């Protein structure tokens, strides 16, 4: 079995474009995911059951529907309901953002719930107002607790971006598929793309492990 290095070199521009798109998708989905997650988390922390309900429903739906089904549904079915269609790229970002919002919302909630009640007592006893209480006391501690979980989720999200190949979003896996089909050099392209994902994700994964260990020691 020959491994044709030259074919990779010849199409490096498209592969690089794919990697860039993957990175862009990750950043956008993460950004919207954090915003949605914060809202979902705020809803989930309400003491009244009725106020919690929308967040509960949201979380259940987007954590249980398989990402692939959701991606196809948003790209192919949602336009039928709305009467307008979005680009594959926008549909993909929307799908991943919705999923990220559900997972990140639960992660944020875990961090806040895990904080000892005495911390809020102390903040109240010291007269810290709503903003200072959250910015100075609750969020720094909650984020520190869940940072490993967040970093872990980022690696999951990075892997999820490859699913967007199914709806022709030009990210890394899609480029490998297209280049492979044009040149019949599937092996070269998918092997190198698989390695590229590993090289991207492995350091982040190691970082999560380190953060977990550090968190356990503190």
């Amino acid at each position, binding site marked *: 079995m020959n491994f044709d290095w030259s074919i990779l070199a010849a199409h490096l521009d498209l592969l690089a474009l794919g990697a860039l798109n993957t990175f862009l998708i990750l950043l956008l989905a993460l950004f919207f995911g954090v915003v949605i997650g914060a809202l979902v988390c705020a809803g989930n922390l309400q003491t009244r059951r009725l106020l919690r309900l929308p967040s509960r429903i949201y979380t259940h739906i987007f954590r249980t529907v398989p990402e692939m089904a959701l991606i196809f549904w948003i790209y192919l079915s949602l336009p039928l309901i709305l009467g307008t269609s979005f680009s594959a790229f926008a549909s993909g970002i929307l799908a991943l953002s919705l999923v990220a919002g559900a997972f990140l919302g639960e992660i944020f909630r875990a961090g806040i719930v895990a904080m000892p009640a005495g911390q809020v007592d102390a903040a109240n006893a010291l007269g810290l107002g709503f903003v200072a209480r959250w910015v*100075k006391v609750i969020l720094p501690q909650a984020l520190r607790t869940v940072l490993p979980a967040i970093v872990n989720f980022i690696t999951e999200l990075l892997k999820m971006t490859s699913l967007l190949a199914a709806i022709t979003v030009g990210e890394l896996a899609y480029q490998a598929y297209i280049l492979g089909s044009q040149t019949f050099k599937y092996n070269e392209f998918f092997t190198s793309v698989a390695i590229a994902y590993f090289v991207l994700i492995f350091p982040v994964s190691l970082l999560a492990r380190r953060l977990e260990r550090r968190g356990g020691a503190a």
Partner: protein
Amino acid sequence: MTQPKIKFDRVTKRYGPLTVLNQICLDIDPGELVTIIGPSGSGKTTVLRVLMTLESIDDGVIYIDGEPFNKMRAGGALAPASNAHIRRLRARIGMVFQNFNLFPHMSALDNCIEAPIHSLGLARGEAVNRADELLDMVGLAGLRSRYPSQLSGGQQQRVAIARALAMQPEILLFDEPTSALDPEMVGEVLQVIRDLASAHSYTMLLVTHQMGFAREVSDRVCFFDAGQFVEQGPPQELLGSPKNERARQFLSKVLEAR
């Protein structure tokens, strides 16, 4: 007759069907150190928590310097207090917790300047100067940049006392301040409280199981049981020869165990 610094007027607190404070009444004079003793789970801590506004109360009125605290005067009647009203009076009260509750992500110094900057609006430099003085006073001048996890329990509790004092309160609440400490660290914390009681004019309310310490520093000891102040008096009297049967039983158990 002087105005009581703190006055509980028939204060009631319920958790569901459980009445934790049952129409309690208590007057505390300015500068007085009152110790509350009683069985675990009797609601002693709740007395402090409602005073610190960490818990709401269901009935009755708490007065600070003669001003209704959980209510406010509106015309001739008492109306529910506004947040601003509660915040203004609450600033006169500081609290020290059983589990210290220091902010673990802040150094000892930062623990002591965060609230003065945000709540009192002090400039950072001034807050730092005052925090340093207070840390010095509790014997921790050299440890200002340590984080709580790098401090012993006794040191943490002394930082917590400095943090409470940094807010310039007139009233200090101590909720079993030595219960979470290893025995060898109890003394250093009690010494700080002793110094505060003798050298300053704070009005202090102390919940403790340290009967010897209560006898030594208290102006008055109150025995609390089943949601009420059952008996109160000078420490020698109450701790020496309590009249109430439950107080007598409690004290004989506690003193036996020592």
